[in-house]
C-alpha cells in the first residue's frame, strides 16, 4: 500500500506539471476537449498500472503522451473523420520523443492557446475559473468544487456547458493577435487574480484545497510569465501574488484570527521571497508600460521592505495610489489611498477623503472597518463602534468577523470601565 501511495503522489506531481501541456496539445490536434481529457485520464490510469512495477520513467511526460496517443489510436480507429488528426498526432508524438518535459515543439504555445481559450470573454467568469483550474491547473473536478465550496455536480455542469459552448459556438483555439491582446490578457489576469484571492482570503479554518488556490494561481501566473515574458502586467501580477504569499505566515494568529499589516510580526516574512518579487517587479517596470498590477505590487513592495509599520514611506505609498487611481478610478482605490493619507497627514484628513465615498461603498465591509479605525483614532468611540458593527453585518469571512468582534468587545469594556 505504501508503494502504491508513493506512486500516486509522484504521479500527481507529474500530472500537475504535464496535464495542461498534454491536454493542450491533444485539444489542438483532435479539436475535441472531452476526448483530450479522457485520453489524459486514460494515460494516467495506464501509468498507475505500469509504474508500480516498472518504476516511474525518466521522462514521465513523454511516457504519458505516448500512452495517450496509443489510447487515441484504440478509440479512434473506427472514426474516419479523425483519420487525418490521428496521422498528425502520430507524426507529432514521434517527432517529439523526449523533449516533452523540457518544452518541446508542442510545449509553450499550446498551453498559451489553452489558457486564452479557457478565459475567453464569451464564457462567464465562473466557467473561465473552473476550466482554467481543471484543464491547465490539472485539478480534479471534485477538488475545484471543494475549493469553491460548491457541489461537485455544479462544477461538472459548468465545465460541460463551457466545453459545449467552445465547440458549438466555435470559440477559437489561439493566442489573440496584437490588437486584441491587451484586453484578452487583462481577462486572463483577472481570472488568475480571482483564483488567487479565493485562496488568499480563505481563513485558516477553511479546507486545505481552498487555501491552496492561492498557490495554484501563483503557479498558473508563473506559467503565463514564462510563456509571455514580455508582458509587464503579468510580471506585476506575479510579483503581487508573491509579495502576498511571502507574508502568509504572519497573517494569522495562533487562534486563527486575522492579523492586519500594522500588527504583523515582520520577522515571519520570507525576506528571500520578497527580494525575488521586488526584482521581478523591477524587471516589469523597466519595460516602461505601467499598469494596475504593477502599481499594486509596488505598493505592497514598499510595505514588504519597510522594517516597521511606523517606518513606512507613506509619501511613496500615497504617490503610488495616486498613479493607481488615474488608471483605475474606483472608490476602493480611493479608500485605500485615504488610509495611506491617514498615516501621512493624520486621521482627520483621511476621514474627510472617505466620507464622499459612503454612498458607493455602503455595502463594502472594509469601508466601515476603515472608517471605524479612523474614528477611533480621533477619539470618537461611539461612532467607531457603530461603524465596526456595520462592518460585522456585511462580512461572512470568519477571520474578519473574529477581528471585528474583538474590537467591538474591546470598545464595550473600555466604556464600562471608564467613569461616566
Amino acid at each position, binding site marked *: 500500500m505504501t508503494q502504491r501511495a508513493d506512486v500516486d503522489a509522484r504521479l500527481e506531481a507529474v500530472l500537475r506539471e504535464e496535464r495542461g501541456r498534454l491536454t493542450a496539445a491533444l485539444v489542438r490536434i483532435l*479539436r475535441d476537449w472531452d476526448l483530450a481529457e479522457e485520453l489524459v485520464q486514460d494515460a494516467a490510469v495506464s501509468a498507475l498500472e505500469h509504474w508500480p512495477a516498472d518504476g516511474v520513467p525518466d521522462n514521465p511526460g513523454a511516457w504519458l503522451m505516448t500512452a495517450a496517443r496509443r489510447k487515441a489510436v484504440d478509440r479512434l480507429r473506427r472514426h474516419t*473523420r479523425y483519420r487525418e488528426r490521428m496521422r498528425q498526432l502520430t507524426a507529432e508524438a514521434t517527432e517529439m520523443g523526449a523533449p516533452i518535459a523540457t518544452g518541446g515543439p508542442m510545449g509553450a504555445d499550446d498551453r498559451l492557446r489553452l489558457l486564452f481559450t479557457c478565459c*475567453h470573454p*464569451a464564457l462567464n467568469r465562473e466557467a473561465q475559473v473552473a476550466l482554467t483550474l481543471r484543464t491547465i491547473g490539472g485539478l480534479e473536478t471534485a477538488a475545484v468544487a471543494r475549493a469553491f465550496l460548491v457541489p461537485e455536480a455544479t462544477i461538472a455542469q459548468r465545465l460541460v456547458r463551457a466545453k459545449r459552448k467552445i465547440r*458549438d*459556438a*466555435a*470559440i*477559437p483555439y*489561439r493566442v*489573440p493577435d496584437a490588437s*486584441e491582446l491587451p484586453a484578452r490578457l487583462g481577462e486572463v489576469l483577472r481570472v488568475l487574480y480571482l483564483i488567487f484571492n479565493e485562496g488568499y482570503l480563505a481563513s485558516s479554518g477553511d479546507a486545505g484545497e481552498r487555501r491552496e488556490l492561492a498557490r495554484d494561481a501563483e503557479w498558473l501566473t508563473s506559467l503565463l510569465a514564462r510563456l509571455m515574458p514580455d508582458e509587464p502586467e503579468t510580471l506585476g501580477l506575479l510579483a503581487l501574488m508573491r509579495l502576498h504569499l511571502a507574508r502568509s505566515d504572519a497573517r494569522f494568529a495562533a487562534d486563527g484570527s486575522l492579523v492586519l499589516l500594522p500588527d504583523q510580526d515582520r520577522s515571519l516574512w520570507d525576506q528571500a521571497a520578497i527580494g525575488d518579487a521586488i526584482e521581478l517587479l523591477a524587471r516589469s517596470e523597466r519595460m516602461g508600460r505601467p499598469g494596475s498590477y504593477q502599481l499594486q505590487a509596488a505598493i505592497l513592495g514598499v510595505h514588504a521592505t519597510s522594517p516597521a509599520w511606523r517606518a513606512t514611506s507613506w509619501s511613496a505609498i500615497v504617490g503610488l495610489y495616486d498613479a493607481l487611481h488615474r488608471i483605475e478610478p474606483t472608490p476602493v482605490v480611493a479608500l485605500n489611498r485615504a488610509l495611506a493619507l491617514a498615516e501621512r497627514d493624520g486621521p482627520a484628513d483621511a476621514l474627510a477623503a472617505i466620507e464622499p465615498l459612503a454612498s458607493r461603498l455602503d455595502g463594502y465591509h472594509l469601508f466601515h472597518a476603515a472608517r471605524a479605525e479612523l474614528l477611533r483614532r480621533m477619539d470618537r468611540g461611539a461612532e467607531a463602534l457603530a461603524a465596526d458593527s456595520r462592518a460585522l453585518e456585511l462580512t461572512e469571512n470568519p477571520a474578519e468577523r473574529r477581528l471585528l468582534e474583538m474590537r467591538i468587545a474591546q470598545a464595550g469594556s473600555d466604556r464600562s470601565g471608564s467613569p461616566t
Partner: protein
Amino acid sequence: MKYMMLIADAEDGMARSTEEEQATYGRIGAWWNEHTTAGRIIEGHELQPSSTATTVRIAPDGGTTVTDGPFAEGKEMVGGYGILDVPDLDAALALAASWPGAASSLEIRPIVERDATS
C-alpha cells in the same frame, strides 16, 4: 462557421429625421455592403418596429393563441438580423463590434448545421 447576428436597440430614436440619424443609417448601409460583398454576411434584413410584431404561441396541448407584440417586451428590441459566414466566434465578435449603429446590442448565435463534420 455560420452564425445569426441579431441586432437590437432601444427602438426610440428610429424616426431617422435628424441629419445625424441619416448619417448613421448611411454608415450602416455602407458597412452592410462591404461585408456582404466580402461574403462575411450571407443575408439579412432590417425589420419593421416591434409594434408590428405578432406572436403565435403553441401550448403543450397543441392549442394556439395569437397575441400582439414580440416574444418578450424589453428595453431593447430586435430590429434586424444578418447571417454570418466567418471562420470562428472571434471573427463574428469582431464583425459585431464594428457595427456602426450607436447604442445597440448584437447577439451572436451559432447556427445548427446538420452536415457539419466537427
